C-alpha cells in the first residue's frame, strides 16, 4: 500500500542515496540491502537524501544504526539531508542529531566529504 524506493548515484567520492515513500518494518529490508550492497562495494561515504520520504518508523531508524559503525570504522560516514519536518522530528526526538550529521541540503553534506 505504501511504496518505498531507494535510488543511488555516485557524486564525486560519495554516494547519494535518495529515499522515497514510507519506511517501516516492511520496507526496511530494502534499505538494508542497499546499504550492504554499497558497503560490499567499498563505498563508505554515503549521503542519504530524505526529500521524498514521508514516514519513518522505529524499524526504519534501526537500519541507519546497523551500518554506522562499519562505515565509520572505514573512515566513511552516513550523513542525512533534506528531511521533511515530520521526519526530522522523529530523528530529533530519538537524539539522532547527536549521532549523525544532519544537513538541510544535500550539497552541504557532499561538500563536507570533498573537503576531507
Amino acid at each position, binding site marked *: 500500500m505504501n511504496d518505498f524506493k531507494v535510488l543511488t548515484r555516485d557524486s564525486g567520492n560519495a554516494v547519494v542515496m535518495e529515499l522515497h515513500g514510507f519506511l517501516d518494518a516492511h520496507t526496511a529490508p530494502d534499505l538494508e540491502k542497499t546499504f550492504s550492497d554499497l558497503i560490499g562495494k567499498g563505498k563508505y561515504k554515503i549521503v542519504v537524501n530524505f526529500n521524498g520520504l514521508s514516514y519513518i518508523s522505529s524499524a526504519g531508524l534501526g537500519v541507519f544504526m546497523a551500518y554506522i559503525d562499519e562505515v565509520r570504522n572505514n573512515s566513511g560516514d552516513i550523513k542525512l539531508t533534506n528531511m521533511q519536518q515530520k521526519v526530522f522530528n522523529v530523528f530529533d526526538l530519538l537524539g539522532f542529531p*547527536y549521532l549523525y550529521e544532519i544537513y538541510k541540503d544535500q550539497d552541504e553534506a557532499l561538500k563536507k566529504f570533498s573537503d576531507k
Partner: protein
Amino acid sequence: MRISLRNSLYITLAGGIAVLILVYDWIRVAVNLDAPFLTGVADLLSIVMFLLIYQTFRRLLNKRVHAPLENLRKLVGYGFFSAALISIVGIVLEKQGSNSGGYLPKNAWQLLAVTAFSFGVATFAVVLLKLTSDLIHIKPDKKVSTRFNLFVGFALAAAAFSVFRNSSLMDTLRTIAFVVTIVIAVFHIVSMNWIVYLSRKEKYKSLVHSLFLFILFGYSFASIGPADLAGGTLQFYSGPLAEFAKVTFVFLTVYFSLAFVVTLFHIPTSSVFEKKKRELDSYQNLSKVITNVMDTNEVLNNTVSVVGTVTQANKVWIELNGSDGGDGQQQPISATHKTSQYELSAFDFGKLRDAVSHRKNVVIHGTNEFAAFGIGEFPAKSLLAVPLTAHDEFIGILYASHDMPYAFDEEEISTVSAFADTAAVAIQNSLLFTKSIESERLQHELRIAHEMQLRLLPESLPSSEKFETDFLSFPALEVGGDYIDYSRIADGSYAFVVGDVSGKGTSAAFYMAYMKGVFQSLSASARSPLGFMMEANDAIGSTFQRNFFITLIYVLLNEKTNELSVVRAGHTPGVLITDGRCRLIRPAGTGLGLEPSIEFGKHIEEEKICLKHGDTLVLYTDGVTDQRNPQGEDFGETRFYNLLMELSGGSATEIKGGIIRTLAQFSQGTDAVDDTTVLILKWRQ
C-alpha cells in the same frame, strides 16, 4: 435348485408328451405302421417337448457365471458326457446287430433305450447351448443377445421344416434355415470378447479347453449323421430333434475351433493388456489411497512406490519445491523408491529442473544427453522427469530412471504423467492441510504470547490522595513492543515508565520483556533518574542487536515535595497540561542502546517540574500520533495535544476514555500501524 410351479408344469407336460410319443412309437414298431401324417404330428409334439425342456433348463441354469474358465470346464464336462452317450448308443446298438441307416427298434426295450437316448441328447444340447450362451454373454451386449436368439430361432425353424420330409419345398426351406443358422454361428466369432479379458495363464487353459471342446463336439457331430446308428436313432425318434442336435453340434464345433484360434492370437497381446489393467488398477488404488491421506510424506511415498511398480523403472523419486520456490537452489528430495537421498545428492539436477519447470515432460536417453544435462555420471540409460502441477501451480518434479536406453516410450510417459497429475493434487492438498494445522498452532501460540504479555503489563497504576493515574496499552499485532510500568522507590517516591522497543511483533515483545526485567531490577536501587538511565543504557547496549533500540521516558514522582523528575531516552515527549495550556517535557537524551554510555551520558539531561493542583501529565508512544484514518491522515501531535487540553478537566480515567473514543472515531476502523500506549497522571493537590 428350487423348482418353481411353472417348471414342474413344463416338466410334467414334457414327460406327458414323451410318454405319448413313446406309445405312438411302440405302436409304430409293433404293427409296422407307416403313417407320415401321424409321424409328422409326433415330430411336432417332439419340438414342443424340446421347447419345454429348453425353457426349463434355461431357467434352472440361469445363474450367470462371470468366470469364463468355469464355464469352459463345465462345457468340457457336459461335452464329454454327451460324446460318451452318443458312442455308447452306437456300440450298444451295433452289438445288437442293427442295420445302419434308418434305425428301427425291434422290441420294447430297444424303444425305451432309443427314447432315453434321444431325451439325453436333447437335454445335453440344451445345457451345452445355455453354457455357451453364458460364455458369449459374459460382457452383456444387446447385439450379441439378439444374434444368439436368432441362431436358436433359425435352428428351431430348420428343425420344424424337417418334419415334412417328403416335400421338396420344405426340404429347401430346411436347407436355407440350416445355412442361415451356420452363418449366424460364424458371426458369433466376433462375440469372443471373453477371451480378451483372460489373463495369460487363463488363456493357456482356455486354449486347451477349446481344443478339447472342438474334438468332443466335432466327434459328436460326426456321430449323429443320418448314416450313423446314433443319428439314425435320433432320426427315428424325432426328425426335428435330430436336425436341431446336428445344428447345435455344428455350431459348437465351429465356435470352439474358432475360440481356439482366437485365443491363440490373443496370447501375444495378453501381456500388454495385463499391463494396462495393472496400471489402471494401480491408478485407482493410488487415487483412493492418496485422496484419503492427509500426511504429505505418506502421499509422496505411495506415489513413488506405485510409479516404481507400474513402470518397472529402476529408480523413482520426487523433488518438491521449497516453500519460497523457484530460487534455483538445490531442492529437497522428498521421497525415493529403490534409491536414496544420499545417492541422489551426488548429482546436480539443476538443468533438468529448469527444463521441467516450463511444465513439460523431459525424457533423456543415452550418455550424450545425460552429459548435456550435467548428470553424465548418473547410473541409468534413460530418465524421465515429469512436472507435478496442481491448480496451475508447479509444485515439484517426479523422476523415473531405467537401466535400459529408450525405456520410456510414449505410452509409459503418458502413464507416468497421469500418475503425476493425480499425485500433484493430493500433495498440494496435504500441504495445504499441514499448513492450516501449522497456522492454527501458531495462532494458538500467539494467543498464549498475547496473554503472557498482558501479564507483563501492570494491572493498574498506583494512586494516592495526592494523585490518580490510569493507562491504556494496545498492541497493533497480537504482541507488541510498547512498555508501561511503575515501581515504588525505597524513599516513598514512585517511578513511572513508558517505553517503545523498535520494530513490532514477536521480536519487540521479547525485548519488551527484557526491558521490564531491567526496569524492575534497576529502578528500586537507582540513585537518581539519570543514574537509572545510564545503567539501563549499559544493560541494553550490551544485549541488543545494533539496529534494535528502546526509547524510554522515566518519571520520578515525589509526593512530599510535589516534584517531578523526567528523563527521556529518545522517547516522545511528556505532555504537561497546566492552566489549560500544553507544555512539552522534552529533556535531551538519545534512545537506549544507540550509543555507548560515555556518549549517552554526555547527551542526557533531567528536567524537574513542580506540580500544581489540576496538572495533568501524559506519557505516550507514537502509536497514538501515527494512528491513521481511511484518508491516510495521521492523528498527529497537534490533534493529540488539543484533545488533551480539552479533556484536562476530567479525571485520569475520564481522560483515558476520551482518548480511546476519539482515536476510535478518527481511525474509523483503520488498523493501528503501531502499538499504542498512554499513561495519564493527574495531580490533585
